[in-house]
């Protein structure tokens, strides 16, 4: 799948896919924040399992998404493990020793916590990407009653990102046709070769910016207009309010418990 597909794809006919855009956005975002503020093994494990169940049982993610993100996440987990187990310098009870190399229990707790939280956020991102497209995000911003300028700039940013990716592919192909090999040579040489990519891309982007600006103005756009109407409106059902409300309540409870009682905090397992 191309990068453009990741920005625009939505899983066909899944249970999560049928929810309203705000629910589809708040679900992975709030679960990610819950994972971020918790360092309790059982809760971290629960959040990871929960997001995996929602993702695989209710959202029908394309295997290309899952493979790509899992591969990248496992590689990151390996890096975290090496860093926390051998290079972090944490003090604690030694649970393994081989010559000068030792692993302490505190490092194991920390790396377990980091990996569980990282995986939760990774699969939450997969859930977000495979159930929402840019229109859902823009509509949610409007539904939240944020200023129109914000949702308009967001929509334009998505559109420009896709155009930039397409231009970048075209320029790369054109430069490859003129014997520029972006993947060969030393790091310095490779960086120099990217100038051949950057210069035309900057020129194209500047031209496009001017045309887009003219096209917007020509179609009666003005931030200050009071008479704007909206053709697309969101249908948020009661079930969506219940899910969003529950998610916010759980998050508030978690933060309150952490701040006042100190529960859901700390290891050992």
């Amino acid at each position, binding site marked *: 799948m191309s990068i453009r597909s990741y920005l625009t794809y939505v899983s066909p006919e899944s249970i999560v896919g049928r929810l309203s855009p705000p629910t589809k956005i708040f679900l992975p975002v709030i679960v990610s924040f819950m994972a971020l503020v918790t360092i309790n093994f059982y809760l971290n494990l629960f959040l990871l399992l929960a997001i995996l169940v929602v993702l695989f049982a209710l959202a029908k993610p394309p295997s290309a998404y899952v493979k790509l993100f899992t591969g990248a996440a496992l590689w990151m987990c390996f890096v975290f493990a090496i860093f926390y187990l051998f290079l972090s310098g944490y003090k604690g009870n030694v649970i393994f020793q081989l010559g000068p190399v030792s692993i302490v229990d505190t490092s194991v707790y920390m790396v377990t916590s980091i990996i569980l939280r990282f995986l939760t956020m990774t699969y939450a991102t997969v859930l977000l990407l495979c159930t929402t497209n840019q229109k859902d995000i823009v509509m949610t911003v409007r539904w939240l009653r944020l200023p129109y300028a914000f949702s308009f700039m967001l929509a334009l940013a998505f559109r420009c990102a896709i155009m930039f990716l397409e231009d970048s592919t075209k320029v790369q192909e054109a430069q490859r046709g003129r014997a520029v090999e972006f993947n060969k040579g030393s790091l310095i040489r490779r960086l120099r070769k990217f100038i051949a990519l950057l210069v035309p891309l900057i020129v194209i982007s500047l031209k496009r910016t001017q045309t887009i600006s*003219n096209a917007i103005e020509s179609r009666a756009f003005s931030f200050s207009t009071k008479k704007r109407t909206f*053709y*697309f409106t969101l249908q948020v059902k009661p079930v969506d309010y219940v899910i969003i409300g529950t998610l916010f309540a759980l998050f508030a409870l978690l933060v309150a418990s952490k701040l006042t009682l100190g529960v859901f905090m700390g290891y050992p397992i």
Partner: protein
Amino acid sequence: MVKAVQVKDLWWKYDGSQDWNLKGINLEVEKGEFLAIVGPTGAGKSTFCMCLNGLIPHNFMGTMKGTVVVSGMNTLEKRVADLSEKVGLVFEDPESQFIGMSVEEELVFGPENLGFSKEEIKQRMEQALDIVRMKNYLNKAPYELSGGQKQRVAIASALVTCPEIMVLDEPTSQLDPVGKAEVFSVISELKRNRNVTIILVEHLTEEIVKYADRVILLYGGRIELEGQPKDFFKEVDLLKEKGVFPPQVTELGYLLNKSYGASDGNLPLTIYQAYEEITSTLKKVSSRCQK
């Protein structure tokens, strides 16, 4: 009766430019007229188009003299947003003018800005899609469309506000032959069945002669030549000197006329006229030979 466009002694110079880009343009366009503009690169064609919907002077830094009045509105006094209800502008590159991620989002943008109701937007959108024959593409993303389809969507997004004047700035220059044919069939539909004033900047003179009521040659910021297609394209040498290529059949007729004095002064503009012209020339030459 109010003219569709009245341009009086228009001068424009971009900031930083040494010379004036438009030099004393005087032009009137009747309601419902189809005006074609030809000229080489750098003649000021796109600059002139942007003067018609107020992008110049409102969106560009520069110096302007003279007046541009479209549908009774002076472009100096009105905002581009106000003028956009009267003038629809279609740019050369269809890809760069898209704002939405689907054809539907693209089409509703203008009417939303103008404050139309949902029902009215829907009705206007259906009408515009009907004209450009893109009704089945409502949920398609712009990048899923061919060049011709993209430009048809761009035309529909200008038409959706029901402007009195449509300005098309080289709408086919980046398209393949199929895309060009698609766009010209839409232009043909606009001319035949809709009461829209059309100002078309185009290099394809073969297409211009099919639709245009009047043609102007813009060169170095000035109108160098103006007239109905049959008179305009008679000036083959002048046009070629200024970097404009008349229809090939016109050139052929011109050369035949020069060599054999065959024509009565009118040069062919279409292949059928050329066929008749050549047949009559051959007959004349053959009768001369027999004598």
